């Protein structure tokens, strides 16, 4: 039986949550609304307007928007892929092996995330120009490692540390080779951490603005930079801008929904004595 006091508390909590949800979602809702408005109606502050698909037609059919999205997918996806291939073994090494200055190294990796992008991007620009990495997929994928790799290594390392080393020993005794153990026993256990950190890394890479702004120009055009194109020199097409932003937010949302069930943690608990 719930007492009246508890009920009131429940209602209060829900009301607060709803207020927060509205507060957090309002900019997004406003953006979606603008994307359906014609240029003349953009500045009205009422919710009533005449919805139109003109902006969508303009952006999706009459510009290179598809190419920009594709570029973003390639560099962000590539960056996450490289991070997984490099980061998972690195995380395993940091979790399992003891070597001199291990913690220093781990901290060094984390510290890449501290550096303000604008600070490192200028020297990188010079180096990229010389190396021929400027305005290339490889160049952007490489620099995106600064964003995605530390995150992935630190999250996955924690998951590896949670797995008792005896599980590996048991599998060895059971007749499995190291690679079989890694893929059959360990990967399923770190999967929640791997998936969630990879998703976060993907979103961070996708949203990155400073790096592609400075380090790419014509050949590689990620969507974050491309959106600026709809800010003309003489006029700003806010409607088209909103469409570009709305559509560019979709992939991350779709990914998050698809892998939601893997984001649940707790699989690795309980098999080892506490």
């Amino acid at each position, binding site marked *: 039986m719930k007492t009246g006091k508890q009920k009131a508390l429940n209602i209060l909590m829900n009301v607060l949550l709803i207020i927060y949800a509205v507060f957090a979602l309002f900019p997004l809702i406003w953006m979606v609304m603008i994307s359906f408005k014609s240029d003349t109606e953009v500045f009205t502050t009422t919710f009533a307007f005449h919805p139109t698909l003109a902006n969508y037609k303009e952006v999706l059919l009459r510009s290179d928007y598809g190419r920009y999205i594709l570029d973003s997918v390639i560099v962000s996806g590539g960056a996450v892929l490289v991070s997984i291939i490099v980061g998972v073994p690195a995380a395993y090494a940091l979790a399992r092996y003891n070597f001199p200055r291990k913690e220093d190294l781990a901290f060094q990796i984390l510290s890449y995330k501290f550096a303000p992008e604008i600070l490192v991007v200028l020297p990188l620009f010079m180096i990229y120009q010389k190396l021929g990495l400027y305005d290339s997929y490889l160049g952007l994928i490489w620099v995106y490692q600064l964003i995605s790799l530390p995150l992935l290594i630190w999250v996955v390392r924690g998951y590896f540390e949670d797995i008792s080393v005896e*599980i590996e020993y048991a*599998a060895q005794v059971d007749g499995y080779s190291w690679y079989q153990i890694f893929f059959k026993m360990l990967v399923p256990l770190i999967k929640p951490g791997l998936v969630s950190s990879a998703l976060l890394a993907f979103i961070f890479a996708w949203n990155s603005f400073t790096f592609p702004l400075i380090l790419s120009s014509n050949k590689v055009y990620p969507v974050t930079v491309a959106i600026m194109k709809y800010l003309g020199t003489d006029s700003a097409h806010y409607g088209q801008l909103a469409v570009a932003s709305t559509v560019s937010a979709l992939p991350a949302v779709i990914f998050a929904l698809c892998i939601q069930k893997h984001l649940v943690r707790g699989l*690795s608990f309980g098999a080892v004595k506490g």
Partner: protein
Amino acid sequence: MARIQLENVRKAFGKVQALDGISIDVKDKEFFVLFGPAGAGKTTILNCIAGIAMPEEGLIKFDGEIKNLIDPAHRNVAMVFENYALYPQMTVYDNMASALRSKLYKTPEDEIRERIMWAAKTMKMENLLERLPSQLSNGQKQRVAMGRALVRTPNVFLMDEPLAHLDAKLRNSMRTELKEMQANLGSTCIYVTHDFMEAMALGDRIAIINEGKIVQIGTGDEIYYMPCNEFTAQLMGDPQINIFDARIGEVAGGFTATFPVNGEEITVSLPEDGRVYSTIKEKGLEHVDIGIRPQNVKYSFEAKEGYFKATVYSYESIGNKSVIVAECGDYQLRMIAPNGLSVAIDSDVYIRFELDRSIFFDSVTKEYIVRYDEQTFIDLAKSEEEK
């Protein structure tokens, strides 16, 4: 099914010498128990045999073949880990099947099923097969870990305290079961425990380990009746053996032992025994530590001829019997008594030793010197070994 030999194995973790020259020779089909206090290096020995830990020195041989450089997978050993080490993402059934499904030990699925069913039945856990490890209690996990080893036919079973987390009743029945199973399977088994009852009940032979060294190897009775030093004597037996310092004196036709009890000097004559008397004479012993098991200490609550007086320190029931602890000044004496006595703390108790059951230790080195009826126990040990 193999003979397992360790020759002078040494292993250090940083500055800690975990194993300091371990040599054991486990016969084929033997049930060998490693027994010692926590941190003695028992688990490290198992890890070295399994190949999980690499010794810095020494040889590990299976059937005479040196296995030092063989990886764990190819040694064909089955191990029960102290913390279970179950695979959390697999059901109990898949956990138990994992070894038989590996490329190395590939077995047809219907045979796997048969063996798992057999193991599950002996471990009384048929109803658990579809569960995940996180849905099991500690005792159940331990049984699954045992089951995972038992489905295999390895060179040797390595068991690291496999019964430690079971409840008392199940532990007793498992103990019996295990001994019988091992005899039926005809396999070598190396078993780590810190429970003296388990060691005595299961082991064909027992190795006492302390601080990375072997203290003594022998059958349960051999170690119990002829412990090689005071450490072993204290480890084997519950309640612990009584050990006290005594002065040997010579009188006409025999020897006496004199020891202090609450400030008074008590002198008792040592019963005649050829071996004991001749040893005392040969070594010219003046001081010895006398070890006497609690069941060989007799007590009375009234003054009696040949009994000396002490005060009761505590009286506690340990199930089907009780232990009286008596205060004797510098040391305490433990003795077995029946249940249901009304014993007041600090009351007087009169004590007599059955000295013809005592063991003599060197009072300086704490090593075994001699005991009463030594030949009987040497013969007993021999006959057990021949079995």
